């Protein structure tokens, strides 16, 4: 694990200097059959290291488009998107794959565990595509989310909440600076929602930057800041408390 240092955003540091994600006039337009749709329109905002941001908005508001770009799965058609200081537009597809493996940890609503791999192997899969597998580290990651005792179980043998915890362990294994959670509690019952919410709180406290898409107001309330989307337009809520965590 990389060292995580909690510090304050002081007067000498601008938001831009601490930004781990920075969008400047970013738009994403889809064209097809002679028509074009602007799914994201002139978005400008930044997320600083250690911040927990909730992205909210109704269906079709551009949440998925924004998340795809923040997850390096898509690129803007206009504007500049920088993640950890790197401009995504300048990267080749292979560089983008590498960058994604290094910088982003995905937590999905539907967990997306490979059905024929055990919980441990699912975590190791992220290591495999990142660099090299290390069973000890993978086990430690599962222990961290309270799933060490279920390491050898297949996804079909796990409950929804357990699968989501494995998904979180997988997202954490390569120690990425950004966790991108897309409706992380959308498929869970109340008890498991609470477990996952607590896990995310812990991760935030230890300095992780969390970008979370959610429809759930309770989950959104856990974030320091909300970014609301409507018809592709971004509305940033004011920056919350002064304390943020910086990961070095």
């Amino acid at each position, binding site marked *: 694990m990389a060292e995580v240092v909690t510090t304050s955003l002081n007067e000498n540091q601008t938001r831009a200097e601490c930004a781990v994600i920075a969008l400047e006039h970013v738009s994403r337009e889809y064209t097809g059959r002679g028509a074009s749709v602007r799914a994201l329109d002139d978005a400008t905002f930044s997320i600083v290291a250690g911040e927990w941001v909730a992205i909210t908005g109704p269906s079709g508001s551009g949440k*998925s488009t924004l998340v795809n770009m923040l997850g390096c799965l898509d690129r803007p058609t206009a504007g500049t998107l920088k993640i950890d200081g790197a401009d995504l537009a300048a990267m080749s597809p*292979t560089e983008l794959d590498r960058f*994604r493996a290094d910088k982003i940890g995905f937590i999905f609503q539907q967990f997306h565990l490979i059905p024929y791999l055990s919980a*441990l192997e699912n975590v190791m899969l*992220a290591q495999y595509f990142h660099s090299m*597998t290390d069973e000890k580290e993978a086990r430690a990651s599962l222990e961290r989310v309270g799933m060490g005792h279920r390491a050898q179980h297949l996804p079909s043998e796990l409950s929804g909440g357990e699968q989501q915890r494995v998904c979180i362990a997988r997202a954490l294994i390569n120690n990425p600076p950004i966790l991108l959670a*897309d409706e992380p509690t959308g498929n869970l019952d109340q008890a498991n929602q609470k477990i996952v919410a607590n896990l995310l709180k812990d991760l935030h406290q230890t300095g992780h930057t969390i970008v979370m898409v959610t429809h759930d107001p309770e989950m959104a309330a856990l974030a320091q800041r909300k970014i609301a989307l409507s018809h592709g337009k971004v509305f940033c809520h004011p920056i919350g408390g002064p304390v943020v965590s910086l990961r070095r």
Partner: protein
Amino acid sequence: MKLTLGSIIRRSLIHRRSRSLSALTAMTVSAGVATALLTLYASLDTKLHKEFRSFGANIVVTAPANTPNLAEQVKKAAGPEALTAPFAYAVATTDRGTPVVVAGVDFPAVRAIDSTWQADAWPTAPNAALVGQKAANFIADERTLALTFAGQKQTFASAGHLRTGGDEDSRIYISQADFAGWTHASPTVVEVQIPGGAPQVEAALGRLRAQLPGLEVEPVRQLVEGESRIVDKTHALMFGAVLLIALTVGVSVLATLSASVLERRRDFALMKALGGTQLQMMALFLLETVLLASAGVATGWLLGSAAAWAISETNFHTATLPRPQVLPLVLLLNLAIAAMAALLPARALSTLEPASLLKGE
């Protein structure tokens, strides 16, 4: 414990066992049929020529009467692989006064060349005769078979009847020694059987004509040309069958592989989201395909070899042994089928959009 490409593929194949099994079955069928046909194809010439040899001679040499050492000359010119059988002919009269053609032959040589001749028993003792079944009607007493040639009466004992369905049925065959002692005539016809196909026969014809200029050397046209046509047609038929089967299996494998990619789009999308490169995705999919193709070839080669053996045994009454040299060809064919069938699914992989797939759209 290490997670490797091999272990991911192994788990994936076992997990989707019915899909894997159907792809493996298609590949096995393809390899099996290709092995059987190629194995038979490789030994087809030998087997068909052997079958055609049972129809008799493919060259006939005719010489004027009293040509010295005719049989030896022909044998020398025809080559060591050729079989030869000299025939000497005379017209004698039976005890009923009916003229009949009597032939002096070398019985072991005739049996070797004319293997379709059916005799009750072949003469082995001196003064024994093989009587054609039609010729038997011209004889009053076969036990003391009295024949007269140029006023010389000679008595033979019938060893058995001959049935060929041809002119031979109207003749009487005796040994060359008995014939020479009785008629003082030497062979005027030599039947030659050249092993191999039309090219070998043509070559032997050239040699015989060159070395024996005073003799009439003629091929048995119907046999040589018929053999050539049948061998060519059989080759074409087998080629066509291999292509047709390859095409059918290719379509079946394409359907299986496409379905395999389609049902795992989310797995591949996830791998891509986790940082898997296009190359790694392709490697995973193509290696899986190659593994299935190779396993199909191994199983198919064994089954195909067994099928070739059974077909050969049933149709040609000789075993065709497994041919390891067919294996690279079958492997190449199956890999080509798998590669072509994998092209479309591989293209689908390259256009995967992880974001929408993982979102469940």
